[in-house]
């Protein structure tokens, strides 16, 4: 029975030991704000925590929470990006009495039912970044639909390949084969590819969220298909991995790389010409807008089909139940240094 003592101590230490570190996050959002009236508990869920894209979104969100003052913001999500873990978190937040849950939906199939249940219990649900099914949320803060992304990527590649009839073999390096968002984008990409009959998709390879793997796979693809003209790197690690492979193979400019990523991740490739253009929206603005919309929804001040939403950063268009962030930014050699996220 002697083991009891250390076991107890261990448990106590563990739990207590985590105390101080945590309080920082919890209060960071609301500090310094006027505490007039009720504060809304808003939970912001990224697809995966610990990824720069979402981290910069969260920064924007925290700015918004400070500016608005009546928001108690919590930013948390699964570090492994598993939809199941995200679903568990949502369920917990409902129990904790969330007012608004804003979800970047990693897998509509898994999260949809959970979100519906949350709404049944009176929690306002909005989606941002990646949408869930329409009936599982009130509004979608829309920076781009999967269709826009898919079409956009293919169009960008087509444009970079040039000519009226863009020609050449292309390949996709995705996240995991099971990644729901990427799979949806790929559906639209394949659809769009039909528009360019001479662009031939030769392979789709998973990178398992491993940059090294993305790098190696891209390198192998270039050698296995010597005529390869373009690679889509459609996850935040696949894009820089693919770009690095092209750069190291000395094929900068000969093999084009397109994808979605934050400017910070891609800055060096844009500057040395490996990547001509990076497509992305302003992530901080996205986070900011999401929190604004969350506040409006909590107050009941915003309903679907309103003509526009008045943001602190200007008027945002609405399209049905979508709040539109505005046009994506195309980062090029010329403007990339203006952005830091």
């Amino acid at each position, binding site marked *: 029975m002697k083991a009891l003592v250390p076991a107890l101590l261990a448990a106590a230490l563990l739990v207590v030991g985590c105390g101080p570190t945590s309080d920082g996050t919890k209060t960071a959002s609301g500090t310094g704000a006027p505490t007039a009236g009720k504060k809304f508990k808003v939970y912001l869920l990224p697809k995966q*925590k*610990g*990824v*720069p894209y*979402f*981290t910069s979104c*969260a920064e924007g969100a925290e700015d918004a929470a400070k500016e608005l003052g009546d928001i108690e913001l919590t930013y948390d999500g699964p*570090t492994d990006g598993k939809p199941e873990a995200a679903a568990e978190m949502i369920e917990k937040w409902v129990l904790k009495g969330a007012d608004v849950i804003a979800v970047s939906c990693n897998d509509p199939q898994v999260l949809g039912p959970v979100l519906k249940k949350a709404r049944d219990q009176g929690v306002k649900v909005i989606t941002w970044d990646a949408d869930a099914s329409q009936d599982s949320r009130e509004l979608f803060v829309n920076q781009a639909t999967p269709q826009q992304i898919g079409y956009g990527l293919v169009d960008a590649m087509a444009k970079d390949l040039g000519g009226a009839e863009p020609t050449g073999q292309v390949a*996709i390096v995705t996240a995991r*084969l099971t990644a729901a968002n990427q799979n949806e984008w790929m559906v639209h990409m394949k659809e769009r590819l039909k528009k360019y009959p001479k662009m031939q*998709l*030769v*392979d*789709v*390879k*998973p990178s*398992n*969220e*491993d*940059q*090294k793997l993305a*790098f*190696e*796979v891209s*390198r*192998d*693809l270039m*050698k*296995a*298909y*010597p005529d390869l003209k373009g690679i889509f790197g459609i996850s935040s*690690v696949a894009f*820089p*991995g693919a*770009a*690095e492979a092209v750069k*190291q193979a000395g094929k900068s400019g000969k093999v084009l790389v397109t994808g979605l990523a934050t400017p*910070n*991740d891609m*800055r*060096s*490739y844009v500057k040395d010409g490996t990547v001509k253009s990076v497509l992305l929206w302003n992530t901080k603005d996205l986070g900011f807008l999401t929190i604004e919309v969350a506040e409006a929804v909590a107050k009941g001040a915003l309903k679907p089909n309103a003509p526009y939403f008045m943001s602190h950063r200007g008027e945002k268009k609405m399209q049905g139940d979508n709040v539109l962030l505005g046009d994506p930014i195309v980062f090029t050699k010329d403007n990339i240094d203006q952005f830091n996220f």
Partner: protein
Amino acid sequence: MKKLPARELGVGLVLFVLVLAVQLANPAFLRPENVRDLLIQCAPFAIMACGMTFVIILGEIDISVGSMAGLLAAALGTWASPSHGGRPLLDCVFGVLFLGLALGLVNGLLVVFARVPSIVATLGMLTVLRGVTELVLHGEWVTDLPPFIRQLGIGVSGGVPNPVLVALLVVAVSITLASLTPWGRRVYAIGSNPEAAKVRGLPVKQVKLAAFALMGLLTGVAVLVSAPQLSVVESGYGTGWELFVVTCVVVGGVSITGGRGSLWGVLLGVALLSIIRTALIFLRLGDQASYWERAIQGVLILTAVLGDRVSARRRAEVGA
């Protein structure tokens, strides 16, 4: 000197057939630049597999190396990046090596002195270190590795890519260590019969501690040549490497219960497992084949493992 056991032959055979088949299907496979790339691809795993071989021959296992690599890469990134630490090359190199050694020592201490079974101790470390990595990077990746660090991964010395050079060095030292030094032979002795080792007064604890520390150190070396190959250090770096390295070692014929195995076999294992994926791409099967890639990998591993069951079994019964 000693004849190659059946496992090495089996793995070598599977490797040979695979390479031959792919080469016939796509002559680009064995072009010098691809061979070079394959070697670069193998290098970090070969380095870690050397360390893992000693650990497994001792009858232990270290499944924390994936997360350890992640933390070491994060440390390298934050130390080297001009926007974070901005430290000079030697600081970074020795920092990573020292940290790797220290983490390996922690594993070793848990196993040797706290007497926690190694698979459990390192399982715990696998989880803990991944969490620490997340905390260290707090959601931002390092994207500005300075050129002198990148050079470690993409540079060439005397016509040989740096990672390959380092891997060759590590392999040579490891093989020497294993077969030509007292320490190496003691590793085999302890793994072969731990009880006897104790009775004979072999320094079991020190040898085990050293093996875990070496594993940590080599993980540091592997990170130094692999992380700088890429422009971005991300928080998920190294995820799943532990199982890959263990699989390489085991496929290469090292007995999971200790005492038996050779680094030559392990190198064949590393080569086989690293080549499978590339080979599948060179077969140009198209995107539908991607969905079967893992299944094919699994079946190949299973084949290699089952391959020598006859010889293993015979040997087991003679020893019984």
